[in-house]
Every structure is written in structure tokens, then in C-alpha cells.
């Protein structure tokens, strides 16, 4: 009996070795994608992961002779989970690159792991400017709040808007947006009559909107995370602010393409500044939107999805440059100065700050073929993140 058991064990080991051989022939690079797939920010996770998958579906799963394997993990939007998952991915699963990070605190929680393990980490969604300063190994393919709030200020000042009330969510990105919009708008001769900050978990916008109405500005500048934005839009219309002659200008988060269509009429005419619109007119984007909608049951790709898509584009381009070397220092060196054509237009990575340089588009919500879309009408080309540009 004992003999037979040893024999079987030996056979098992031999089989195991056999199975391992073909895998070793083509080395696998694991990319750990940490995203909020459940909880209040699940739509971020869904969009980013679908974007990343769309890239692999379009470009194949091999680059520089290495097979790319996506490992998607859910952090439910809590920072301590993100950090624990990042450690597990690096230590147990041998992930060579980390990516994803739906919110600023989640990205911040990973920064120490990235620094210590020298793991390149690609921010695909979070938008506070300071994230890339937290670690040498962090780069970004979404965008920063200052980057797309500032042009809205420029546009407003140039288009006859004199008095503005700002209304932002009271947390990191909101304060970034308020600061950079106001700064630019004032520098160009505008006046901020009031700055309202709304708590993040705020059920009813009524009092804040009434305050805006009573201040009688020419326009109200708004940043809110995308879900809250849709609710805001309805109440904005209901309170008759548009009838009172108050224009709504915002960052693109408020008119998130994913839910824009369900906002209905009140959203029409909203002016926003952002880096991506589903309706962006380019052959790259047409192909992307078509493939994305087909693979995701008609879901519209929004700016988060394109962050995921470009995150993968960045990984592929960097690996090609390093000839498949995914070790931290070599990878990050390759990332600096990379440029490519994304569905959103030309983008590149700033060699000094590792943050993304991209066009910011001014858009207006219009009805196109019976659906609401952000239609671009002006472009601010190749903008850097203003916060880090100023710090130098």
C-alpha cells in the first residue's frame, strides 16, 4: 500500500512539473487592479475595470513577449482594505504592477506599499492633485481636479460671466476644484461672491441652492461626485435657478456620461470642463465606444473607463520600452515622457511629476440622436496639473 501511495505522489509531482513547463515558457506579468466593485462607488469600479478589459480585448494579452494577467480585487471603497489587498497582491500573488484606486484616500493608502515594494502603481480614477507626490512609484491616467477646474475658470471669465458662487463637496477633490477655479477666475477679473461647501453625505441640496439663488450670481460653479451630481441637477432645475438667469458651470463629474441620459431635460445646457466625453469625435474614440458598449450590454463608457483603458495602454507602452522588465525603477523610468493617442485625444506623462498631460475640453449638454451627450465646443490643449506646476 505504502508503495502505491508513494508512486501516486511521485506521479502527482511529475504531472505538476509537466503542467508548469508551458507556463514558464511565457512569463506572466500580473497586474493587480484594486477597485471599489461593491458599495457606494461600485460604478467607478465597474467602469474602470470594463475600460481596462476593453484595452486587453482590443490589443491582445501579450506585450514584449510577456502575458498580461489582470487580477481584479474589490476594496469596497475603504482605504484599509485597499492597503491590505495591495500587500496581499504584491506578497502572495506576485503582482508586478498595481492599478485602479477609485478614490483619493484609497490611492493614498497604497502609496507606502508602492514605495516600499517598488511597485509601479497607476491611478486610474482618483483625482486629487497631491496623490502622485505620495510616492515615486505612482503615476496617473485619469486627471486631476485642478487640471480640469482651472479651464472652466478661464472659460467663464472670457464669456461674460462676472459673479460666481462656487458650490463643492466638502472633501479633498472638492476643495481642489474650488481653489483652482476661484484662483483662475479671479486672476482673469471675475468675482467670487460666495463659496459654499456641501457635506459629502448630504441628502437634500435645498438650503444650499436657495443660498445660491439669493446671492444672485451670473453662474454657479459646481463640483460634486457623479452620483450626487445627478440629484443636484434636478433640484437646480426645480428651484428655478436657470429661470432666475443663473448659469450652471461644472466639472465633468457632474454630467457623468454614465448617468447623464437619465438626468433628463434639466441637464440641457450645462457647461462643463473635463478630459473625456463619450461623444468625443475621433476615430480612436468611435472604435472604443463601439467595442465598450458591445462588451458591456450597452453601458456608456465614461471618463473613469477611459482612465482604466489608458492605464493599460500605459502599462503596455512602458513594458515595450523596457522589453518586458516590470521591475519598479526601470518601469517608472520608461513611464516618464511616454505619449500616446488615447480615445480622449493626445496624452502624455509629465517626466517630472509622473502625472498626466492632456487636453481639457469645454462641453455643453445637448441632445444628440435622442440621447443627452456632453458635446465639446472648445479645447485647452496639453494642460499640466497646475498645482504641481506652480510648486516648482
Amino acid at each position, binding site marked *: 500500500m505504502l508503495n502505491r501511495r508513494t508512486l501516486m505522489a511521485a506521479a502527482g509531482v511529475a504531472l505538476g512539473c509537466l503542467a508548469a513547463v508551458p507556463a514558464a515558457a511565457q512569463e506572466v506579468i500580473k497586474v493587480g487592479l484594486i477597485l471599489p466593485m461593491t458599495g457606494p462607488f461600485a460604478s467607478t469600479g465597474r467602469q474602470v475595470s470594463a475600460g481596462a478589459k476593453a484595452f486587453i480585448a482590443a490589443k491582445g494579452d501579450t506585450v514584449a513577449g510577456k502575458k498580461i494577467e489582470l487580477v481584479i480585487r474589490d476594496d469596497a471603497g475603504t482605504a484599509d482594505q485597499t492597503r491590505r489587498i495591495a500587500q496581499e497582491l504584491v506578497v502572495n500573488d506576485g503582482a508586478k504592477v498595481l492599478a485602479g484606486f477609485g478614490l483619493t484616500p484609497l490611492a493614498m493608502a497604497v502609496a507606502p506599499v508602492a514605495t516600499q515594494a517598488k511597485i509601479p502603481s497607476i491611478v486610474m480614477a482618483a483625482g486629487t492633485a497631491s496623490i502622485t507626490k505620495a510616492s515615486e512609484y505612482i503615476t496617473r491616467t485619469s486627471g486631476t481636479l485642478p487640471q480640469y477646474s482651472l479651464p472652466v475658470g478661464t472659460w467663464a471669465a472670457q464669456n461674460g460671466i462676472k459673479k460666481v458662487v462656487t458650490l463643492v463637496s466638502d472633501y479633498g477633490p472638492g476643495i481642489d476644484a474650488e481653489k483652482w477655479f476661484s484662483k483662475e477666475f479671479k486672476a482673469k477679473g471675475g468675482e467670487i461672491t460666495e463659496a459654499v461647501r456641501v457635506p459629502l453625505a448630504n*441628502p437634500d441640496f435645498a438650503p444650499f441652492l436657495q443660498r445660491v439663488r439669493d446671492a444672485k450670481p451670473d453662474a454657479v460653479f459646481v463640483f460634486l461626485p457623479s452620483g450626487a451630481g445627478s440629484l443636484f441637477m434636478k433640484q437646480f432645475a*426645480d428651484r428655478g435657478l436657470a429661470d432666475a438667469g443663473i448659469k450652471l458651470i461644472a466639472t465633468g463629474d457632474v454630467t457623468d456620461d454614465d448617468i447623464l441620459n437619465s438626468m433628463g431635460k434639466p441637464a440641457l445646457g450645462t457647461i462643463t470642463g473635463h478630459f473625456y466625453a463619450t461623444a468625443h469625435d475621433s476615430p480612436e474614440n468611435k472604435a472604443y465606444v463601439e467595442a465598450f458598449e458591445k462588451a458591456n450590454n450597452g453601458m456608456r463608457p465614461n471618463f473613469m473607463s477611459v482612465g482604466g483603458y489608458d492605464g493599460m495602454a500605459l502599462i503596455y507602452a512602458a513594458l515595450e520600452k523596457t522589453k518586458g522588465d516590470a521591475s519598479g525603477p526601470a518601469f517608472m523610468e520608461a513611464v516618464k515622457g511616454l505619449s500616446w493617442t488615447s480615445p480622449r485625444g493626445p496624452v502624455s506623462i509629465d517626466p517630472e511629476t509622473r502625472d498626466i498631460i492632456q487636453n481639457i475640453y469645454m462641453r455643453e449638454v445637448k441632445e444628440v440622436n435622442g440621447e443627452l451627450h456632453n458635446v465639446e465646443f472648445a479645447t485647452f490643449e496639453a494642460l499640466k496639473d497646475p498645482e504641481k506646476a506652480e510648486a516648482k
Partner: protein
Amino acid sequence: MLTILFDGVAYGMLLFILACGLTVTLGLMNFINLAHGAFAMAGGYVTVIMMNRYGISFYWCLPAAFIVAAFIGLILERTLYQWLYQAPHLDQVLFSIGLVFMAIAATDYFMGGQQQLINLPPELSGRMDVFGVGVGRYRLFTIILCAVLAVALQLILSKTRFGSRLRAAVDDRRVAMGLGINVPVVFALTFAFGSGLAGLGGAMGAEILGLDPNFPLKFMIYFLIVVSVGGTSTVSGPFLAALLLGIADVAGKYYVPAIGPFVIYALMIIMLIVRPNGLFARGGR
């Protein structure tokens, strides 16, 4: 000024409809049901599905939300809740908070995590001027409907036979049973009615408060504040408490936006110090 008062009243009325079911289960049936918000969410999603997928009128959605939430309440009461009436409060809390998380996960799975929006019929949207005061039509509708419900509820509890049976069943279950009152049926109906009201509140609140899978958790605090400030032994207590909180919340956010969100919590603490058993307590329990 008057617009703020009006908005506050509308918000308070909505809070009352959402929370009064909780008053009934907590105060009258002595059961801590933290999953109350889940019934409200169910009502909200019924409305969203009916309006957005099948294009049914908003006015039909309201009774439907009530009936569906009440029906779910009835089933859960018969299958799960009734076993916990005699259990310690901690068990009830753990059980119902577990239900909340299950409801959140299930909703997220079936409906997705995004904000759900409904488009109101045109006669309810926008605002009008009444003697120079800007009044949101939908908020006015909310106030009227909720006021009618509040009066009806008070009458049912104090004047009808069912109301007296319920109060008897709560005061002394054994004696009530001895008198031939079918206590389990009374409780089940009450629970279903409370859940139905929550469902109605959720349906009406979808427009003002928003609706996403985290609704039950987001509003649990508000429900509990209303119930703890208002006391659990009457309907009028929570009614006034909800109005007070609604007005304080809206006015606080309007006049002192920097500390606006804290106003209702400060108010709650003061009320609990001054009247620990609620605004209209029947004396200590």
C-alpha cells in the same frame, strides 16, 4: 426666509413618513428594527422600476410602493421578525443590521450602485410664487400628502378598534390574548403597515433625497434621531420632532453653511438632555 421655512417643513414631513413606521415598531411593538430603511428603499426602487422601465404614472407608483413594501414587511415579519420579539434588544439590533447589509448587497447586485433618478410629471416639477414666496410644487405635494397621512395615522391609533387592540397588545400581551385579541395578527398587520409607510416615504423621497443601495444606512441616523427626539409612544411626538429637525437642518445649512450639518445633532443632544423620554413621553417605561 419663508422659502427656507417651507423647504424645512417639506423635508421634515418626508422624514416623518419615513420614520413613523419605525416609531410604531419601536414604540408600540418594542422591537428595534434598524432595517426600517431597507423597506423605504424597496418602495423607492419599486417606483423607479415602474416609472423608468414600464412608464407607469407617478401617482400609481405611490400606492404600489406602499403595497409592495407592506407585503415584504408582512412576509419578513411572519418568517423572521416574529421569532425575535422576545429576544434581547442586542439580538434584534444585530439581526436587523444584518438584514440591512443583505438588502444593500442585493440591491447593488440587481439594480447597480448608481443613483436612481425619476422624472416627475410636469405638474409636480418646478416652482410657483405664492404671495411672493417661492414654493416648489413637489414639496407642496409632499407636505399635503404627509399631513393627511399624519392625521389619518393619529385617528387610526386613537379612535379605531384596531388602534385600541394594538395598544392593548403592546401594554400587556398576555392579558390582551386572554381577552381574545389575536396578538400575532395585530402585530403582523402593524408591522406591514409601518413598512408600507416607509415604502411610501422612500418612493416620495427618491426625488428629494436620492436613491442608491446605501439608502438604508445613510438615513438610519435620521430615523433614529426623529424617533429618539420625538419619543416612541405617540404619533404626534415624532411628527413634531421630524418637523423641528427638518426646519433646523435646512435653516442651519442655509444660514450657517459652515456648521450646518451639525445643527441637528446639537439639537438632538439638547432635546435628549431636556426631555430624555422624548417630546411627549408618557412617563418612563
